[in-house]
């Protein structure tokens, strides 16, 4: 009752009337009709018990979902790490029943094919991203391009291989690193388009307006203002696309095929011959009945995952460095 406002001084009759009212109110229970038992947070009450049980179920399911994910990494380190040596990176794949050996040519093949695919995709993807970011909101072409690159994101990787097989292997008459690179570039394109679009449209409008206000043409604005400012974001997208392409197997199975030799065997670098890649090596060796080959497959898987994760982390570090404008 202490925080009641002071009673205004009035005549004796009025004042006693007021006090009566206050007394009547004080006698009445303000929480009448409220059941405190219902409000109690206790595990014996069905509503809160239900909440707690579901919380435990979700926690349990999350742990259950995480266990296999980490088991994959653990098995990779355990089984792949046993075999790790310098020979793996310099030697050629062993013949059946032969001991030792490595997959140096497969690492080289993966790097070369991903590099060629990047060279094809980056100009295409970044310029498309520029177009999407600069197009007016109601542009129908931009909408269609955006939609088709989203559809391409979920394009099955094996179909990219089928396409490259029909368009390049059948035309040039043989399996080649170029065919593999084309198949990979189809899978990289949507990632690069969508990330460079979002990176470019995040450049503050005032920078673009200042550039145009100083008389720069659209092309100058893009090259000298938008692309340098958006570069970290674009690089993140490129690195993510590279990481994805490096791990793809299905598009390479019947475009680059596999090879037991170096890409530059015979003295000169030839991109028009069957080429080894880490991913296809893992697939081929995992189906072999020889212990040495299976161990090599595990070691190759470890090397591939480490390469992919490092590329991913580098990509993410680019966008983390981005200056907040």
């Amino acid at each position: 009752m202490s925080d009641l406002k002071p009673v205004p001084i009035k005549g004796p009759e009025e004042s006693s009337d007021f006090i009566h009212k206050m007394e009547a109110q004080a006698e009445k229970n303000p929480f009448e009709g409220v059941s405190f038992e219902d409000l109690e947070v206790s595990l014996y009450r069905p509503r809160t018990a239900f909440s707690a049980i579901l919380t435990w179920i979700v926690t349990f399911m999350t742990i259950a979902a995480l266990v296999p994910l980490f088991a994959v990494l653990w098995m990779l380190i355990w089984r792949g790490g046993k075999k790790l040596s310098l020979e793996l990176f310099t030697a050629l794949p062993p013949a059946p029943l032969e001991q030792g050996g490595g997959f140096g040519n497969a690492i080289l093949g993966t790097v070369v094919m991903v590099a060629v695919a990047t060279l094809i995709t980056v100009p295409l993807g970044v310029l498309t991203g520029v177009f999407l970011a600069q197009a007016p909101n109601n542009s129908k072409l931009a909408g269609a391009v955006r939609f088709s690159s989203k559809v391409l994101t979920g394009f099955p990787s094996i179909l990219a291989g089928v396409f490259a097989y029909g368009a390049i292997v059948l035309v040039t008459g043989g399996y080649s690193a170029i065919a593999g690179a084309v198949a990979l570039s189809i899978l990289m394109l949507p990632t690069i388009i969508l990330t460079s679009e979002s990176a470019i449209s995040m450049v503050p409008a005032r920078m673009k307006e200042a550039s145009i206000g100083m008389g720069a043409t659209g092309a100058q604005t893009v090259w000298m203002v938008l692309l340098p400012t958006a570069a970290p974001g674009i690089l993140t997208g490129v690195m993510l696309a590279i990481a994805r392409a490096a791990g793809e197997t299905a598009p390479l199975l019947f475009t680059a095929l596999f090879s037991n030799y170096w890409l530059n065997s015979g003295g000169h670098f030839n991109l028009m011959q069957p080429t080894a890649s880490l991913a296809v090596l893992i697939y081929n060796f995992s189906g072999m009945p020889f212990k040495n080959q299976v161990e090599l497959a595990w070691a190759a898987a470890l090397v591939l995952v480490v390469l992919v994760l490092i590329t991913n982390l580098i990509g993410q570090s680019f966008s983390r460095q981005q200056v907040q404008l």
Partner: protein
Amino acid sequence: MASIPKITRLQAQEEAKAWNPQAIWQPPSSTQRFFDRLFRRMTYVFAGFTIVLIALLVVEIAIKAIPAFREYGFSFLAGRVWDPNKGVFGILPEIWGTLYTSLLALFFGTLFGVAAALFLSESYLGEAVFRFLKLFDLHFHPFWGKLPERLEALLKNLIELLAAVPSVVYGLWGLFVVIPLIRPYCNWLHTHMGWFPLFSTDLSGPGIFPAVFVLSIMILPTITAISRDALVSVPPKLRMAAYGLGATRWETILGVLLPTASRGIFGGVVLAFGRALGETMALAMLVGNANRLTVSLFSPADTLAALLANNFPEAGAKEIPVLMYAALVLLAITLVVNMFGALVLERAAGKAAAK
């Protein structure tokens, strides 16, 4: 410190007279304007190329499939035999296998993926760590106090990184770790509950169940990432209003958060379905590649993508059009699913923006 060269007043006046503003800012020259136009055209052409690319992919595969289509027609879709020596081809078991494995994997992936998304978006981990720190009175400590947030971010990044692990590695893991591990349990189920159609064969090696198991693990990060984004972007005022009305946490989640985020979650699930349909390597390694039409979880089977991966490298001239036909069927299924998913997500984003 570089010294500023001193100039006399007269020199300054001379310089001001000689100063030509035109040299610094001027309208673009005709060359610059030419390059500008060229550049605009180029972005236009490159952007159009993306649409052309999709058309090209479809047309290329369709043209190569025409001979097979002429010969087998639609009976190809209903045939159950694949025999290159006799020239009899049918892909009904593969279509069934593709849909069966993807739907089963989608069921498990969604169940666990959405649970993990709820766990992340409700920051249960952070809360638990906070409570634990409070026991030692460290919850506002400059280093330990930040631990809950950091662990949350770490967990989220880890799940997203795991989506980057190549599928062939999951296949390798499934082949050498999962199959030996689950085989005794599966065979126990078969001997004791063999009358149930799902357990009607024993697991002798690769089969549908190991494939589904690994496939659901592979699509889980996709579902978790998209569902978490959808849950986090639910406006906080809705959650506060629900709590204010006296709802418990789970009444809020089930009655307010999940229905509001349902569109985004659904879009993510559809995209994951598209990914599962097109997934090749893990299935080619784990599903057994047997041309069998079965509901048994432990029987080997085949999928469209695995069929392509296994038969293309050694295909003869007669088999290639048939495989292209199978590729076309796979393309049709995945394009429909992916377009549907992209549309749903676009609608969801539009609705969220409208709020």
